[in-house]
């Protein structure tokens, strides 16, 4: 089990109803974490989702470590 923090932005923030949550998880990778949280929150279908750990983009296969901060990034729409 690792202690991590998940931050939510935009549609995910509105869907989950909070800006962040702290949790203990058995998930080995950020992909596993997404699957776990999707079961709990039933995330909306968002097309091509990216993910960041500790404020850098990363792969879905990135291993989770104690103290990591994770952000799931829906399709962006700046400009």
């Amino acid at each position, binding site marked *: 089990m690792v202690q991590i923090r998940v931050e939510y932005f935009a*549609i995910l*923030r509105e869907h989950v109803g909070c800006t962040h949550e702290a949790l203990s998880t058995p998930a080995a990778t950020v992909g596993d974490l997404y699957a776990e949280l999707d079961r709990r929150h039933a995330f909306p279908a968002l097309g091509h989702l990216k993910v*960041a750990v500790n404020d850098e983009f990363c792969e879905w296969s990135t291993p989770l470590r104690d103290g990591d901060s994770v952000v799931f990034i829906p399709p962006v729409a700046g400009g």
Partner: protein
Amino acid sequence: MKRFDFSRGAVDLVACRAQLADPAAGAYASFEGWVRNHNEGRAGVLRLEYEGYEQLGVKEGERIIAEALARFDIGDARCIHRLGELDIGELAVWVGVSAAHRDAAFAACRYIIDEVKHRVPIWKKEHYADGNSGWVNCEACAAHAHA
């Protein structure tokens, strides 16, 4: 001085442009995104809301500016993106590039705005005259807005 930044208040364009002043520069190209009253065929956009993942956004923005400086023969480049609530006509994003010649200035300016739109984690929520709202680029949201 950050070359890419977010701003929660109005952008001071005179100050932004002045940062790029350079006696060797003969060309200055700039781009501004303005909040328009329509999007993707839908009229009646009343206002926008931008939300950004700022810690990652400023890093990705700086990477884009660094790429532009490496790829094109330019002197300097900057970009500022607004966050928060914006009314129609307000400036949402500004890009400025100075260079000796205009080819490079135009190319780099276009590169920066294209990459910022695709890569910097910023989300746009549109508020419509009919009371609906929706996160742009997000089918589920679009469906929700029309529900």
